[in-house]
């Protein structure tokens, strides 16, 4: 029932992208997102599309897994497109009743749609090719300088990895409790909003209890292993840059320069 949610799902494969240091992938994703907002013409988007296609090909993750993440934002995408399409002032193209589509509106709407799509696909590449643990490791390392300002970087990273780790566990639990209550004649689908909300009680109470139970067990297990936070804590597999990571950074710099160059040099009518 709930297994279709692919939030932060990892896809196991043997590829260069999978092997890259998570820091590289994090920085690359941020750079890619920034590049999407720098470029202002179709040439720039073609370059971004080419870059993204190469990365996806290299990652050996089937394309439909990337598109899965899109389902969640289809609604958001539609709203953005509609608003931009009808509410941008400028040169009128078509006018029906009170709605007018302007040339500028069309342009922004299309670009916005492309940006959002690329943004989601780009970040899915990262989550699909990096295990949640690796990802939080990378974040912890990247945010380490913030420790000077007394930001509890390690603790935040640990909380994130625990939260991510428990998403599938709790989803499975939800599925199980739901089935158990359906077996007792519960009905989660029919009825009005009030009735539906009320019907969730038999699901939510056991789910919360189970979440607290798991949290308690985990805390106990961590304490039994003498966990006491980030200070002086070493890693079993410390992150280390390899040659391919350097190459990846180089590629990234090239990509960004090409994007900026294309944006400044190429003048297109749209």
């Amino acid at each position: 029932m709930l297994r279709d949610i692919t939030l932060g799902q990892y896809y196991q494969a043997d590829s260069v992208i999978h092997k890259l240091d998570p820091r590289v992938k994090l920085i690359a994703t941020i750079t890619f997102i920034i590049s999407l907002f720098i470029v202002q013409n179709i040439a720039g988007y073609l370059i971004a599309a080419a870059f993204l296609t190469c990365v996806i090909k290299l990652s050996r993750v089937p394309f439909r897994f990337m598109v899965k993440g899109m389902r969640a934002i289809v609604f958001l995408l539609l709203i953005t497109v509609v608003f931009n399409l009808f509410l941008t002032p400028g040169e009128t193209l078509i006018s029906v009743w009170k709605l007018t589509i302007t040339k500028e509106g069309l342009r922004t709407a299309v670009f916005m749609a492309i940006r959002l799509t690329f943004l989601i696909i780009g970040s899915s590449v990262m989550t699909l090719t990096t295990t949640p643990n690796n990802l939080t490791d990378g974040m912890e390392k990247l945010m380490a300088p913030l420790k000077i300002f007394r930001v509890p970087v390690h603790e935040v990273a640990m909380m994130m990895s625990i939260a991510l780790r428990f998403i599938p566990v709790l989803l499975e639990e939800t599925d199980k409790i739901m089935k158990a209550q359906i077996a007792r004649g519960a009905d989660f689908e029919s009825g009005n909003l009030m009735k539906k909300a009320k019907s969730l009680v038999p699901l939510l109470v056991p789910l919360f209890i189970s979440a607290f139970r798991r949290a308690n067990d985990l805390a106990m297990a961590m304490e039994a292993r003498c966990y006491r936070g980030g200070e002086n804590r070493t890693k079993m597999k410390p992150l280390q840059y390899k040659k391919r990571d350097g190459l990846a950074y180089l590629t990234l710099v090239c990509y960004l320069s090409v994007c900026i160059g294309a944006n400044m040099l190429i003048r297109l009518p749209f």
Partner: protein
Amino acid sequence: MPLILDHVDYVYGGDTELAVHALKDVNLVIPDGQFIGLIGHTGSGKSTLVQHLNGLIKPTGGSIYFNGEDIHDDDYDKKKLRSKVGLVFQYPEHQLFEIDVFSDVCFGPKNLGLSKKEVELRAYAALKQVGLEDEFFYQSPFDLSGGQKRRVAIAGVLAMKPDILILDEPTAGLDPKGRDEILDQIDSLHKEMGITVILVSHSMEDVAKYVERIIVMNKGSVLYDGVPKEVFRHYKELEQVGLAAPQVTYIMQALHEKGFPVNTEATTISEARDEILRVLSRA
């Protein structure tokens, strides 16, 4: 009301690379009033199979008939099916949610749309059937011991008055005393009310004492289906699929190999004792 499974197939994960063939061509007839043990190693498909029996999972191939009707027909009343085929999940105490024991047991019959009086009568009867004393009825279910919680959860399903009661590993995580109590109670339910009971377990020891028929699952298919004596005759094959026959079977087999003319088909300790005494007294 018999339950019939006709060439049931089930594949998890649809057409992705991660697809798992959980059930392969399962054919079973579950007649009225039997006490059945469903045995299999972890991942053998036994939990998937029982979820098919009350329509929680729709098979990807084949059909399931309850009382002669296909349960996945569009106009079939699934809610009614679920009241007739009661399913108690593994660790059923995790599904408790009400403020007191009695209201929790009322949840099932209430969902059937019965009158308040009927609901309460059924809840009371169910709690009595699982042997819970009155003093616990108005306590929070979360204050009870593990074994008591489990009984409350089983009562929650019993209160719907099912014709078939399915229990998925009802003894998991209980101590030997709690285990025996629960199993004895299920056995008396079967005897007194004549309902069909399907006991899912991976322990032969647990079921050998009670059931009249054993279905052994392995890798999604039915490996053996017969009376316990017949199934335990395959104790060597059972070992190969990660199961074991009851210890008594091993003792009797060993005695037989050493030259004692015992009948190796004894499955419970008392049967074995009688058999050994019989042979010894003759000698």
